């Protein structure tokens, strides 16, 4: 069929190419090891981890176990987050900002349900400066009333307004609070002004900072820094932070977060969001890790990985119109998780899609999944996990949290391996379990249109 010469030429070229670059060949989905792995260590009680990415920049983060889950009063985490990089005993806010500008760096602070993260991105040479800065922020920030009133409070207020304007955020937070009540269920932004008008003051924030920045309660994680260097500087600059948790703080309960479930409906005129949640898996570093939940999440899926196409996952076909978005996510925390599907769009479409989604979940729970679909889902889950691992920001937080909670770094290679090892039976068993527990259903938007969980056939 083919002229002989052309076949030969192709083969020759192929051989030549192989001979040229024998080392760079790698199996398709085998993760690069080495640079992917975190090295962890301990410097005078401060846990730290680093991986030495080749590259001119470094990302350094202080990950503290002080997310909204651990706050004693509502709003404390947010207050502490907004106080990051403000006046310290040695430097003013302005000086910190200007110095970072001159060094060409980026400072950032954010919080999640479990962690408070102070992050700095900078050129490799500036590592000592930023380790020192993080040490300073942790140990000697001045919590002054006028800074709180003039700079921190308006930011909290903006966050509150922003939260109220986003139905999806509201629905997800509401689903979490249905699922876990207190602790993990605490919303990440305040839904009313009560938290910061009633509970928040510089004194309470300062007291909380002694908890958040105590040595056993935070970890330093670096991407693109040499381990020895980081170890040296962490040793030097974290002497002033408290060595132990404050004695007058109630100890954080070690019991596993209990899953409750239920239904909540919130009227909103800014859009429609519908969240259906089930008990999920903890992080890889936690004790209740179930890789099959990640596979199940990508099996249900909903979001397309290809442009201009609805995608091939089960829920992708359920969307009632192109403007209706369905997305399944497995939110993982240190000791529990929530597998949830978010549906957004116009009220009528959300209603139709929700009905369809529940039908598909019921089918999946009944074991009607083909082997091929599970294979696809596994590949997608593994890709997502590895891609997530390359994303510096995600890795930083998970690794830091892993170190603080169970002194184990988040090794993405191993997570990928765990996902690989998921069997068909495990996925089916996990799917069956979904409908056995109660669901957490939250509807935000036009309540006249949005369905009740009961109507959909869910147990709440």
């Amino acid at each position, binding site marked *: 069929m083919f002229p002989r010469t052309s076949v030969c030429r192709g083969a020759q070229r192929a051989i030549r190419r192989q001979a040229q670059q024998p080392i760079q060949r790698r199996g398709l989905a085998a993760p690069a090891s080495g640079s992917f792995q975190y090295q962890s260590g301990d410097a005078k009680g401060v846990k730290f981890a680093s991986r030495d990415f080749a590259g001119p920049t470094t990302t350094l983060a202080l990950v503290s176990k002080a997310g909204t889950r651990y706050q004693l009063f509502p709003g404390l985490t947010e207050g502490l987050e907004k106080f990051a990089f403000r006046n310290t005993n040695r430097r*003013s806010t*302005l*000086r910190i900002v*200007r110095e970072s500008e*001159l060094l060409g760096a980026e400072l950032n602070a954010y919080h999640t349900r479990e962690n408070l993260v102070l992050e700095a991105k900078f050129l490799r040479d500036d590592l000592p400066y930023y380790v020192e800065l993080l040490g300073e922020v942790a140990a000697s920030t001045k919590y002054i*009333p*006028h800074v709180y*009133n003039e700079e921190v409070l308006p930011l909290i207020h903006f966050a509150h307004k922003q939260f109220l304007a986003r139905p999806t955020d509201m629905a997800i937070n509401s689903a979490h609070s249905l699922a876990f009540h207190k602790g993990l269920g605490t919303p990440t932004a305040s839904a009313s002004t009560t938290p910061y008008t009633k509970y928040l003051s510089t004194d309470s924030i300062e007291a909380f900072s002694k908890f958040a920045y105590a040595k056993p309660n935070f970890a330093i994680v670096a991407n693109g820094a040499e381990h020895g260097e980081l170890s040296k500087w962490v040793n030097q600059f974290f002497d002033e932070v408290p060595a132990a948790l404050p004695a007058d703080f109630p100890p954080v309960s070690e019991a596993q977060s209990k899953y409750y479930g239920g239904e909540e409906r919130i009227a909103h005129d800014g859009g429609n969001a519908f969240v259906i949640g089930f008990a999920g898996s903890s992080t890889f570093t936690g004790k209740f890790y179930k890789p099959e939940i990640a596979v199940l999440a990508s099996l249900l899926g909903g979001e397309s990985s290809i442009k201009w196409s609805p995608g091939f996952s089960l829920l992708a076909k359920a969307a009632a119109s192109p403007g209706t978005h369905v997305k399944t996510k497995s939110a993982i925390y240190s000791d529990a998780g929530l597998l949830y599907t978010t549906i957004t769009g116009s009220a009528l479409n959300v209603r139709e899609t929700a009905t369809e989604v529940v039908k598909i979940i019921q089918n999946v729970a009944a074991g009607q999944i083909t082997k091929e679909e599970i294979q696809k889902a596994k590949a997608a889950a593994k890709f997502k996990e590895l891609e997530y691992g390359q994303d510096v920001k995600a890795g930083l937080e998970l690794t830091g949290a892993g170190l603080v909670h169970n002194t184990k770094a988040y090794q993405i290679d191993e997570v990928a391996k765990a996902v690989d090892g998921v069997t068909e039976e495990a996925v089916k068993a996990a799917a069956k379990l979904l409908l056995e527990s109660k669901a957490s259903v939250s509807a935000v938007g036009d309540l006249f249109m949005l369905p009740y969980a009961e109507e959909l056939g869910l147990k709440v």
Partner: protein
Amino acid sequence: MSAPSLAPYIAKRPWLKKWFEPLAKWYCNAAGYRQLGLRADDLIPEENDTVQLALKRLPPKEAYDRVFRLRRAFQCSVSHQLLPKGEWTKPEDDVPYLTVVIKDIEAEMKEREDLEAMIVSKRERNAKEAH
């Protein structure tokens, strides 16, 4: 807001301070604001941005007390009277509560101006690399 003053020069030299202290005490008393129940810091002109900001930064209790003192003094002044002797400001109560805040704000502004006027030079190593 501060006018040139010899006070720091005198305060630094103990012998001179000892000399001037009685004079200063006499002067504060003769100035007459204590007889109206005011403190020295109540007399700082407030018609400028720095002092306005400083007033905003006062803790609620102190801001309230300040307004009370000012109104009481105003009443006294209008009715051409002094307060009964028991209500005069005692020298130990006459502490600078506003000056501290104003000094902080001035330091902040000075720092900002210094940073604005800064001349940036390259790090030696980087400068060499880039010729």
